[in-house]
C-alpha cells in the first residue's frame, strides 16, 4: 500500500497527444471523404477558418498547429492539414462553460479560449468513473477528466461537516469517493454520533482533493501586502485584493511558447497568468467551484485572422443551443398513429409509370396533411415539429415563387440540411485569403457531393462527368440559392489534387475538362474499351456483316460507347480519341460517321 506521502505526489502530466482523452474535453471525430467533419443530422456549419492552431491550457499541442477550424452549431472542430484523418478533434459546445477572446498582441496571435464546464463534468465523472478509463460516464460527456496516471485519490486531510451538530470530522483515509456506495461503512460523527449521509462525505472527499495541489506546489501564496496565506491558485489576495505573483513556474518540459513573454506581460488577462504547475490546473478564476478540476481550457489560435467572426458566431451558437433540439421527438410519419414513437415508415411501394407517380404524390399529400393536422392540434407538438414545418413551408414557398432568390434563415437552414452550405458569407470578408478558403471549402464540398453514395452522381455518369454537367447538377441541387459561377467550379476542381481528395480533374487533348475518380486511369479506360471491343469478336452480330467479324470484330461509334459505359457523348468521344492516341484503337470514317476499331494495323504484318 503506497504511503500517504507518495499518494500526495502529483505526477506531472503533459498535455500532449497521448493524453488527449483525459486531459481535456477534445475528442476525435469522424471525417467525410472530403476531409471535413461529418456533421450530425441537425448540425449546421457556421464558419470555417484555416491557419488555426490548438493550445491546451497554456501549452501548444505539438501536432495540432496548422489546420482548419470548423464551427458548427454543436461543436467546434479542428482538422489538421497534414494528417487530417488522424488529427481531427472537436469540442462539444454543450461542454463549454464560456468563451473568451484574446485579441492578440505583437507576436502572439488572437486566440479564442473555450472554458469547460467544471462542476457538472467532475461530479458526474467522479461518481461514475471507474478506476481508470471512464467508460461509464454518460455518453454525452467526453472522457474522464481524471488523468489515468493519478492514483485513486485519498483525501486523508479532508473533513466533512456533520449536518446535525456542524462538527468537522475527518474523512476516513480509506474512503474513495470513486467507488463509494451505500454499503461503504461510514464512521459516525464524533460529536453527536449520527452517521452522515453518503453524499456529504463524498462531497467532502472531493473537496479535499482540491486542496492537494497546495501540498504539491511550494507553499501557499503569501500576499505581499498583507501577508495573508492565499490558496495558490488565486490571483488576487482574498483580504486586501492585491494581485498575487503566481508561483515560480516549474521547469516547463512542454514545448516552449513563443508568446509566453508577451502573454505574461499582458497582466490584465488573468488566463495567461495561470500558474505553470504541471498538476491539475484551475481553469478559471472562480474557485468557488471547489471541486478538483483537472480539465484545462482549450484555445484556438488564429494565425491569419477570422477570430472576430468566429467568436461572434460561437457566442450565437452557444446562446442558441441547437444541440438541445436533438432531444425533441420526431414528428409522426404518415403511417403511425398520433403520439406514438415514430417507427420506421415502410418504404412506399414502388410504382411504375403514371400510376406510381400519382400514388406517390397522394401519399406525400396525405403525410403532409397528417403532419400539419397533428402539429396544429397540439401546440407543444408544434414546437417540437417546428423545424419540419418550416421546411415544409419553405418548399411550398419555393414552388409558388420560383424566382424568389432572397436568402432567408429558413432557406439557409434548408440548404444546410443538404450539406451544401458553403457560402461566401460564412467565411468572413472577401479578401484573397478568404477567397482561397472559399475555394478550398467549395472543392471539398464538391468532392463530398460527387462521392455521396446516396446520390451517386459519379456512378450515374459512369465514373466521369464533364465540368459543365457538374456545374449544372450542383447548382440545381443548391436549389437556386447562392449559385456558384463556372469560374469558381473550374478553380475549385483544379484544387482537388492539391487537397488529396478522392476525385480529380482531368483535361483532355481538346481542352475538355472533366472530373473523375482518382483511381480511374487512362490505362484502365483503354483496357475496358479494348475488352468491350474484343467481345464483338466472340458474339455473332445481329445483322450480317460484310467483313470477317471474327477477326476484326466491329467498329463502335461514340454513341454506342456512351450508352455502354454510361458516359455522356462528349466524354465518350474524348475517351475514344484518347485510346486512339495510345494506339489501342484506330478510326474509320465511313458513310455512317466515325467508328473506332481495335487497332489491327499496328499488328505486325506477318500474314
Amino acid at each position: 500500500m503506497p504511503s500517504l506521502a507518495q499518494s500526495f505526489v502529483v505526477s506531472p502530466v503533459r498535455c500532449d497527444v497521448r493524453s488527449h482523452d483525459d486531459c481535456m474535453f477534445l475528442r476525435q471525430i469522424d471525417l467525410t471523404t472530403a476531409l471535413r467533419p461529418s456533421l450530425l443530422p441537425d448540425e449546421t456549419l457556421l464558419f470555417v477558418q484555416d491557419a488555426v492552431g490548438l493550445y491546451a491550457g497554456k501549452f501548444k499541442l505539438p501536432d495540432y498547429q496548422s489546420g482548419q477550424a470548423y464551427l458548427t452549431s454543436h461543436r467546434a472542430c479542428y482538422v489538421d492539414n497534414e494528417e487530417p484523418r488522424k488529427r481531427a478533434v472537436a469540442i462539444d459546445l454543450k461542454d463549454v462553460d464560456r468563451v473568451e477572446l484574446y485579441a492578440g498582441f505583437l507576436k502572439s496571435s488572437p486566440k479564442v479560449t473555450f472554458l469547460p464546464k467544471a462542476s457538472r463534468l467532475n461530479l458526474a465523472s467522479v461518481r461514475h468513473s471507474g478506476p481508470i478509463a471512464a467508460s461509464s460516464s454518460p455518453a454525452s460527456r467526453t472522457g474522464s477528466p481524471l488523468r489515468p496516471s493519478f492514483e485513486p485519490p485519498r483525501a486523508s486531510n479532508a473533513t466533512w461537516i456533520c449536518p446535525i451538530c456542524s462538527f468537522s470530522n475527518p474523512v476516513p483515509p480509506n474512503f474513495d469517493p470513486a467507488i463509494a456506495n451505500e454499503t461503504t461503512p461510514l464512521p459516525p460523527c464524533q460529536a453527536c454520533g449520527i452517521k452522515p449521509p453518503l453524499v456529504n462525505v463524498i462531497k467532502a472527499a472531493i473537496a479535499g482533493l482540491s486542496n492537494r495541489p497546495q501540498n504539491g506546489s511550494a507553499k501557499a501564496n503569501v500576499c505581499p501586502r498583507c501577508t495573508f496565506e492565499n490558496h495558490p491558485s488565486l490571483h488576487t489576495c482574498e483580504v486586501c485584493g492585491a494581485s498575487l505573483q503566481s508561483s515560480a513556474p516549474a521547469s516547463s518540459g512542454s514545448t516552449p511558447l513563443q508568446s509566453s513573454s508577451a502573454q505574461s506581460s499582458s497582466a490584465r488577462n488573468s488566463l495567461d497568468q495561470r500558474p505553470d504547475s504541471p498538476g491539475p490546473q484551475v481553469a478559471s478564476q472562480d474557485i468557488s467551484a471547489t471541486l478538483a478540476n483537472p480539465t484545462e481550457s482549450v484555445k484556438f489560435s488564429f494565425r491569419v485572422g477570422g477570430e472576430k467572426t468566429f467568436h461572434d458566431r460561437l457566442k450565437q451558437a452557444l446562446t442558441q443551443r441547437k444541440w438541445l433540439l436533438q432531444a425533441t421527438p420526431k414528428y409522426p410519419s404518415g403511417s403511425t398513429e398520433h403520439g406514438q414513437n415514430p417507427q420506421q415508415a415502410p418504404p412506399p411501394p414502388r410504382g411504375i409509370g403514371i400510376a406510381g407517380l400519382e400514388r406517390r404524390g397522394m401519399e406525400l399529400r396525405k403525410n403532409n396533411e397528417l403532419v400539419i393536422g397533428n402539429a396544429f392540434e397540439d401546440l407543444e407538438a408544434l414546437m417540437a415539429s417546428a423545424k419540419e414545418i418550416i421546411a415544409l413551408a419553405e418548399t411550398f414557398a419555393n414552388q409558388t415563387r420560383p424566382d424568389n432568390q432572397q436568402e432567408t434563415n429558413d432557406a439557409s437552414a434548408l440548404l444546410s440540411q443538404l450539406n451544401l452550405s458553403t457560402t461566401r458569407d460564412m467565411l468572413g470578408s472577401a479578401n484573397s485569403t478568404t477567397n482561397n478558403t472559399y475555394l478550398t471549402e467549395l472543392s471539398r464540398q464538391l468532392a463530398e457531393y460527387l462521392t455521396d453514395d446516396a446520390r451517386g452522381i459519379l456512378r450515374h455518369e459512369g465514373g466521369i462527368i464533364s465540368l459543365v454537367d457538374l456545374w449544372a447538377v450542383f447548382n440545381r441541387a443548391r436549389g437556386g440559392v447562392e449559385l456558384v459561377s463556372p469560374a469558381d467550379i473550374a478553380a475549385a476542381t483544379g484544387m482537388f489534387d492539391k487537397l488529396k481528395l478522392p476525385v480529380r480533374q482531368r483535361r483532355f487533348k481538346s481542352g475538355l475538362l472533366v472530373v473523375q475518380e482518382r483511381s480511374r486511369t487512362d490505362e484502365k479506360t483503354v483496357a475496358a474499351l479494348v475488352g468491350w471491343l474484343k467481345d464483338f469478336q466472340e458474339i455473332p452480330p445481329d445483322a450480317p456483316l460484310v467483313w470477317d467479324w471474327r477477326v476484326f470484330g466491329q467498329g463502335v461509334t461514340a454513341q454506342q460507347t456512351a450508352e455502354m459505359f454510361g458516359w455522356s457523348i462528349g466524354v465518350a468521344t474524348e475517351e475514344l480519341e484518347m485510346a486512339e492516341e495510345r494506339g489501342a484503337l484506330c478510326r474509320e470514317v465511313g458513310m455512317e460517321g466515325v467508328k473506332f476499331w481495335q487497332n489491327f494495323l499496328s499488328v505486325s504484318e506477318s500474314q
Partner: protein
Amino acid sequence: MQNLGDFKLPHFFNYPPYFTLQPVRDTREKQVQVWKELIIDYCRTQKIFVIGLEEEFPLFSNPVIERSLSHEAREAFLSALVSEGRAEWLGKGHRKCLILWHHIQDWADIILRFVKDNGLEDSVITVEEMRSGVECRGTELHGIDRAILMRALRLLEQKGKLAIFKGTSADDEGVKFSM
C-alpha cells in the same frame, strides 16, 4: 483472302479502317507502310506503271466492304512512295504517278542482262522491239512503259554503253549497243 484478278490481296484489305487515313501518327505510319507495299506488289505483278489519281484504280476501293480511299489518302500514300524513291510524279500537279517498282538503275541492269542474254551487243534494235519484241517475251522488259525505258536507255547512254539515234520512221528510235 480476296483476289483482285489473279492478285492475292492481303488480309487487311477487308479491314474498314484500312481505308481511312489515320490521324494518329504511329498508326498512320503503319498504315502507310502497308499500303506502299501493297501498291508496289500489285504494280509489279500487274505490270502497271502509271497510276492516275482521279482514275478508278481497283486497289483503292473495296466494294465488298463498301469502303474506298479518299483522294487525300491516295495522295498521301503515293507521296510516301515518291519520297521513298519508288515513284515519281508525272508533270506538274499530282495527277499521275509513275511507279518504279524497279529503280531506273535496276532497269538499266535488266536491259544490259537482256542484251547479254540475247547476244545483241554491237547490234541495233529498236525501242519498240525491246518492249514488245520476240526476245523480250518472258522478261521483265515485256510491256515496259516507254518513258521508263527511255530513261533507262538514256542513263546507259550517259554511261556510254549504248547510243540512241533516230530511226527511219519518225516515231521510233533505235539503240546501238556498244558494250
